[in-house]
């Protein structure tokens, strides 16, 4: 995080377009909602779970909210897939499948994992990350995989009558187990590892606003994503990305929503850890 007001030396550049920011926000809200309404079932024998489910309007209320959030999250996933399809089919943007601005894991990422560990222990320089670092790719694919696994099993549990037409009954046993376990992993991962990697680590604390505001200081991009910065600068595209700094209204909105999201996420993960340890 760096200084917010524009300074002559601190130009801002665009990193995420409004649609990506909207999808992250929708994902954040629906994920928190799903975790909040789903965790009481997963830890149903704990007293806090009973209290929480009462607050959410009983199991029927919680189930209704859970399905509403699930719809929102699946819609989010659908919009993302549609956009990927558009970029591939209409815009012929093959670079999203391979290359420096692709989310697809590449040999470079394996090298950078090792380099980063070396940097952690002071045995080497920081890797020259491009647009997406390996932990961001992991976040992305974890969510992608989670969408398929949790979303798929959730739909099986949501519409059992339909799925029982062509799937054996044991699928429902499997779906409940996988839905719960994968959700547990998602909650544990997002509310600790993702929070730390992207927001809570000292360089970013308390929150990396870029996914909410869409812009970051040019200096920060140059420092943290040197490969991307060099690539953009070399292509002469940098001037096109220069943006105005976030407005104070955007900053206030970002502060409030991220504070609430981080607080709720931390409460949920603490309840989860407490339940797991008991």
């Amino acid at each position: 995080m760096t200084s917010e007001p524009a300074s002559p030396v601190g130009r801002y550049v665009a990193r995420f377009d409004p649609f990506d920011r909207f999808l992250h926000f929708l994902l954040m809200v629906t994920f928190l909602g799903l975790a909040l309404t789903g965790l009481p079932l997963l830890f149903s024998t704990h007293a806090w779970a009973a209290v929480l489910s009462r607050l959410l309007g009983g199991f029927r209320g919680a189930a209704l909210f859970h399905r509403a959030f699930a719809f929102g999250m699946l819609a989010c996933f659908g919009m993302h897939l549609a956009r990927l399809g558009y970029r591939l089919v209409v815009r012929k943007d093959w670079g999203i499948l391979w290359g420096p601005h692709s989310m697809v894991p590449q040999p470079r990422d394996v090298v950078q994992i090792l380099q980063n560990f070396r940097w952690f222990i002071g045995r080497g320089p920081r890797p020259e990350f491009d647009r997406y670092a390996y932990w961001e790719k992991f976040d992305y694919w974890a969510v992608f995989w989670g969408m398929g696994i949790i979303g798929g099993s959730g739909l099986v549990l949501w519409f059992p009558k339909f799925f029982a037409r062509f799937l054996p009954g044991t699928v429902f046993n499997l779906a409940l187990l996988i839905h719960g376990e994968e959700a547990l992993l998602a909650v544990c991962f997002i509310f600790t590892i993702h929070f730390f990697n992207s927001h809570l680590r000292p360089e970013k604390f308390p929150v990396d606003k870029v996914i909410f505001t869409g812009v970051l200081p040019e200096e920060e991009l140059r420092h943290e994503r040197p490969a991307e910065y060099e690539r953009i600068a070399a292509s002469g595209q940098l001037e096109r990305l220069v943006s105005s700094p976030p407005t104070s209204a955007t900053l206030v909105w970002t502060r409030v929503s991220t504070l609430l999201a981080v607080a709720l996420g931390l409460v949920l993960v603490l309840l989860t850890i407490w339940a797991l340890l008991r």
Partner: protein
Amino acid sequence: MVVGASIASGAPTVPSPSNEDCLTCHGETDAKRADGRPIFVAKEKFASSVHGQAGLACVDCHTALAASTEFPHPEKLAPAQCASCHADVASEYARSVHAQARRREGASLAATCADCHGMHDIRSPKDPSSPTYALNLPATCARCHGNPDVIRRGHIAIGNVAALYEDSIHGRAVLKSGLVTAPNCKTCHGMHDIRRSSDPASLIFRGNVPSTCGSCHQGIERLYQEGIHGTLLRQGDKRAPVCTDCHTAHHIQQADVEAWRLDVVKECGNCHAESRETFRDTYHGQVTNLGFARIATCSDCHRAHDIHPAADPRSTVSTTGRVATCQKCHPGTNEKFARYDPHPDPKRRARNPLLFYAAIFMKWLLVGVMAFFGLHTVLWFPRSWRARREGNAEKPPPREGEKR
């Protein structure tokens, strides 16, 4: 009683004192013994009692005074001799838990005739003002069985059953709805020969409980006797549950209230521990755990009284009966749906290998991901801390309004 009988055998040679003679002293409202206890007997109360209406004389019960000529008589007398007329009832009483307690402990707190029936104002149990009238009996028994002091001093192991009964469906029917046909204490325990549950002759002896409850709940008893629990009980299996194991003895609740529906899982689980645990992990179980009962619990699938083993075609969870059972809550579902296992156990490979391996995979995925990124985070933190300090040092000093 034996002592009293020998006194009564002394034949009077002079006319016995009349009731009027007795009332000369006992009719005085302020008459007292030496120790100050009153000796007053209300004439009209006795007159309206069963004994008064039958024209009994005081000395018919207080037989020790039948031949007495010296008045005032000694303070210490043998107790009133109910047995001299009610010999059959007295012999029943002699076998009861109350009489046993009196024999064992001498001057016991345990109830004797007067404790339930009263003394001079004894009335017919059909009389609504009698303490033995159907609607009054619970309160009469509760004078001891709802009295914490008596329960403690009398070592009554079962505790305050009066309070439990009062809150039960039977108690509410009697005490609130005034149903004389609803069971009160004596319906299950008998009257004079109340026996311990360990006594095979007791109405509440384990093996006799179904027929005791069945004296009213005939249709349910028939279903129970046909079911596996009744069959096992007849075969002498000590683990077979009887009515009171699930319903409790005194705190019987209406079966469709939420608290009971949630509680029954525990009751069944007392014996079927594994089934309870595997149920707990399903959606049915999770919702039940959270305290909501509008979802299947044990008896919704297995039924309550006519429970049969799954291999029995009469069972609601048999391979043929299962679909109809699922359809009670999930209308329009098919045979495939009904093959869902409502008691899955991911720890047992034989039961469902797919579930077993899926559980292992999910567990190690969680452990693996969290271990890798846990280490990643732990190593990154100090580095990130230093990077922040170094980063700050590189930057120009903070401007006004900036955090750093």
